[in-house]
């Protein structure tokens, strides 16, 4: 009998991932130092790290990160607070769905940036206009995914629950809401991604604090290393927040074994 041999010759996954980052950073360093491109336009990682260290020590990094984080969290939570109840209501009633859907579809394709000038006019240049923009951007994915989750919950499961004696209210929170959870989780993660996009857009255009401001302000004085610090900070921040959401999701959706990793953001 021929022996079937399955040989495990793969690299350990974690090592591969770390190695990929190391190689990326190293190539960037080499490229930046080679003189091939000006370090003014592409500062090497070592210079970015130095700038980052400096900003960390003088407190400006912390100030800008906390300003951005505050805005993004405020907008994101506000959006969640609005979008989930509305999504549930629209998902439950076809009449409400039919009256809301065309309006949503009309507003959805408008890039959030297009609203920025008006938002500034309405809410001023301060925090309110930024939080408005972020809330607006994060609202749609959360709303639409909540709606879909509720609307397309398995009718068989609803029948099962009713034959087991569940009341309408019990069917709603024991079946409809539970089966909407995975879709809702997708919406929340997408919403967070959208919130970050809107955050940076708002901070780039009109702001005196925050990572977007840091990036823009440093660019004006050709401190590209400082700009890079801002960009990297955004990446780390987004990654960390998504990782927290994935954690929560894994815990809440333990029954679902295919919870995806950090592919959004």
């Amino acid at each position, binding site marked *: 009998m021929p022996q079937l041999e399955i040989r495990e010759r793969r690299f350990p996954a974690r090592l591969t991932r770390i190695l990929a980052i190391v190689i990326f950073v190293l190539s960037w360093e080499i490229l930046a130092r080679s003189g091939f491109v000006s370090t003014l336009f592409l500062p090497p990682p070592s210079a970015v790290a130095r700038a980052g260290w400096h900003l960390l020590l003088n407190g400006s990094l912390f100030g800008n990160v906390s300003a951005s984080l505050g805005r993004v969290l405020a907008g994101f939570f506000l959006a969640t607070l609005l979008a989930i109840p509305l999504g549930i209501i629209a998902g439950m009633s076809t009449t409400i769905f039919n009256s809301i859907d065309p309006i949503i579809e009309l507003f959805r394709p408008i890039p959030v940036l297009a609203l920025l000038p008006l938002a500034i006019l309405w809410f001023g240049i301060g925090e309110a206009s930024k939080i408005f923009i972020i809330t607006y951007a994060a609202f749609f994915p959360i709303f639409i995914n909540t709606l879909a989750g509720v609307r397309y919950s398995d009718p*068989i*499961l609803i*029948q*099962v*629950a*009713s*034959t*087991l*004696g*569940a*009341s309408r209210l*019990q069917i709603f929170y*024991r*079946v409809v809401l*539970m*089966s909407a*959870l995975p879709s809702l989780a997708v919406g929340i993660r997408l919403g967070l991604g959208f919130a970050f996009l809107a955050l940076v857009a708002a901070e780039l255009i009109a702001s005196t604090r925050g990572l977007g401001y840091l990036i823009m302000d440093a660019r004006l004085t050709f401190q590209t290393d400082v700009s890079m610090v801002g960009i990297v900070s955004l990446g780390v921040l987004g990654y960390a927040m998504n990782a927290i959401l994935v954690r929560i999701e894994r815990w809440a*959706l*333990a*029954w*679902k*074994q295919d919870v995806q990793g950090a592919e959004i953001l």
Partner: protein
Amino acid sequence: MTDAEIVIEKVSKVYKAESRAPVFALTETTLAVAQGKFVCILGPSGCGKSTLLAMVAGLVRPTSGSIQVGGAPVSGPGPERGLVFQDYGLFPWLTVRGNIAFGLTCRGMRRKERDAVVDKYVRLTGLTGFENRYPAELSGGMKQRVAIGRTLANDPRVLLMDEPFGAVDALTREFLQDEILRLWKVERKTVLFVTHSMMEAAYLADEIVMLRSRPGQVFATVTVPLARPRRRSDLEFLSFYSEAEETFKMEIARHAATGDSREAVSGAPH
């Protein structure tokens, strides 16, 4: 029949759709199931057997006629009529225990009492050791055990089963057939069991109600003259099965050949 648990009287179901001719899913069906009996409803696809079951469960409203279970008219789904679905219908976010406890939780049963009932049905359905698994981690046969346990835990008067073993492999099916007979003996429920397999019906049923399609209609009710426990290899069993299967197929073929005949054929003698 005075001790009839399920009484189905002149029940018809017509699906009307705009732009299409109405579909007569079931016409003028009358049926009485005595308490504690195991009755199989047998018919080809499209004969309305699942519709009939769904109407007893209260999920589908008859176009005309009436259904009574335990003397009370059926007007909607209720826990006294437990339905086991072909595709299990397990709640994927609940463990085996959570699924079995579902009806009890809805009823507001105390935790302690509920745990005792759940324990009992975990044991009865042979799911010990799998209590805390999620449905995604179970085989098809096990999923159906959970579904049956969940329905029985609710202590229904009647157990309705809609081709419950249609989605499992042949070996598991025979095994589950034995299991359901064992549970039926313990629990003494009235069972209405939909199937398209004469073999299954002959093995399980006290009575077989045969339906044909277009329009869905009962054409014979046969009492199975076999003692229990039955064995699939017994000569007696096999001769009953082959004769019944022959009669059934002939009628289906004859009906198909004569087309959309509406004439009522009187049922075979009881």
